[in-house]
């Protein structure tokens, strides 16, 4: 029972990180029809910011917001430089562009920083743990869960109360009509990228605080997982992205914890097999977007 509680906390922490990443992908996809595979490199940029801040002796409470800000600025720059010129292009054009951006950034990290994994200085408190009865919970796990919940509340408020957030929902549904209201395409799309950068930045801080290292390919695996989570939840649906992220987190953690030893090496295929199984019954994901086929800018 204690093991179960402990693994559930782990699943919430990992699932929450996937959920934030999947949300970042979904926000951009719902508005532009672009699956941004360079989303992971936003994480890596945050990770390196944390690393350099550590080297320079910047206090952690300052370096975390700086790392998140770096991802937001990088996301907005990515849109302006790489994706705006291909806006309105086919889905394939935008997808290939995002691969190109990801690869260029990875090569830049390898050549300008290091091809090897670099240590990131983290405060002591993150590696400590709390004892609740017989359950031992890492502070970094608690931090991840709290940060995820706060981000989800923030995003919910933003999308439902703020004018720009409502405009983003409107544009995701019918871009042409949104423009008739005077909603500018550039504003909404830059806003979507800024939000996705914010989510990637927070996810990166959580990711790095479990590992204390950063490497040029750091963002690849979590974003691939987030992409699976977004599909599982229903591509383009924000609620679906959150549901898919948590679902994937639970599948992975429970399989790692409770699968008999002799099956452990098949953990990943079994996990993905479960994802395929869910999609067989719900091909559009758990909470499908109602506007999947809608025309984007």
């Amino acid at each position, binding site marked *: 029972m204690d093991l179960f509680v402990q693994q559930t906390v782990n699943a919430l922490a990992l699932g929450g990180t996937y959920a934030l990443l999947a949300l970042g992908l979904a926000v951009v996809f719902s508005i532009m029809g672009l699956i941004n595979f360079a989303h992971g490199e936003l994480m890596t940029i945050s990770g390196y910011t944390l690393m350099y801040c550590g080297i320079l002796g910047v206090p952690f409470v300052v370096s975390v917001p700086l790392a998140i800000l770096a991802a937001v600025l990088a996301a907005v720059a990515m849109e302006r430089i790489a994706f705006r010129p291909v806006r309105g292009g086919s889905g394939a054009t935008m997808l290939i562009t995002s691969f190109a951006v990801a690869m260029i950034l990875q090569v830049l990290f390898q050549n300008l920083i290091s091809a090897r994994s670099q240590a990131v200085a983290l405060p002591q408190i993150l590696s400590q743990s709390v004892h609740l009865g017989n359950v031992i919970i890492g502070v970094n796990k608690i931090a991840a869960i709290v940060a995820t919940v706060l981000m989800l509340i923030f995003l919910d408020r933003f999308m439902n109360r703020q004018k720009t957030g*409502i*405009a983003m929902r409107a544009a995701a*549904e*019918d871009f*042409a*009509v949104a423009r*008739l*209201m005077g*909603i500018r*395409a550039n504003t909404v799309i830059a806003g979507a990228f800024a939000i996705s950068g914010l989510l990637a930045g927070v996810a990166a801080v959580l990711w790095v605080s479990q590992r204390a290292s950063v490497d040029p390919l750091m963002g690849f695996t979590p974003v691939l997982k987030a992409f699976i989570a977004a599909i599982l939840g229903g591509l383009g649906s924000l609620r679906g992205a959150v549901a898919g992220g948590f679902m994937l987190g639970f599948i992975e953690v429970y399989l790692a914890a409770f699968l008999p030893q002799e099956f452990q090496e098949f953990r990943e295929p079994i996990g993905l097999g479960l994802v395929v199984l869910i999609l067989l019954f719900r091909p559009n994901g758990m909470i499908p977007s109602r506007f999947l086929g809608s025309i984007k800018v």
Partner: protein
Amino acid sequence: MTRVPLLSAQGLNVRYGAIQAVRGIELSINEGEIVTFLGANGAGKSSTLNALVGLVPVAEGRVLFDDQDITDLAPERLTPMGLTLAPEGRRVFGGLTVEENLRMGAYAVNDVDRRMAAWDMVYDLFPILHERRKQFAGTLSGGQQQMLAIGRALMCGPRLLLLDEPSLGLAPKIVGQIFDLIALLRERDVTLGIVEQNVAMALEVADRGYVMAAGRVVATGTAEELRQTDRLRAAYLGEE
């Protein structure tokens, strides 16, 4: 009595690839008028309206609004100038509440007083929208959605509102209500351009009209004149 029209188009052409939807039409709408565009399906009425507001590109020709050349301006630039369109098929944001839809209509209005006045006017014209303001627009009936689409377009305080097929797919009783509303809008000094299939209703509220066929204007005149001309019938029956 000559006055500068609020909106005019000269030699307007619209193409979709090899297909020419609008072939060099001339039109004008004066301040305070209700002008209707009539014609069979595929005559180019909606294409004309969409080109005026920048939703589809103008291949050739010029569009002037309030003496300014707006030919190549994007729709989001025209709304703050006072020109907007309530598109065909209503196209309300189904996943937004009624209130949020209206709030989006006023997106371009920065002046608080003007925004408050718009809320008052729209809720006054459509009490049902006030009643349903917390409801998702997708759950409204067709007639209510059309009211919301018109209300949403009115939220920006337009000087010229273009309505594309406001009666499409609505029950006859609801169509009557929509046209009553159009008559009310005239009392509130909103200039209107209406594309409509319901010829009798349209000519009843309109001052003037253009009859289109195969992308051209084949007849124009006052509503009274158009009611009496054969060109109207001919345009619908496809005789050029």
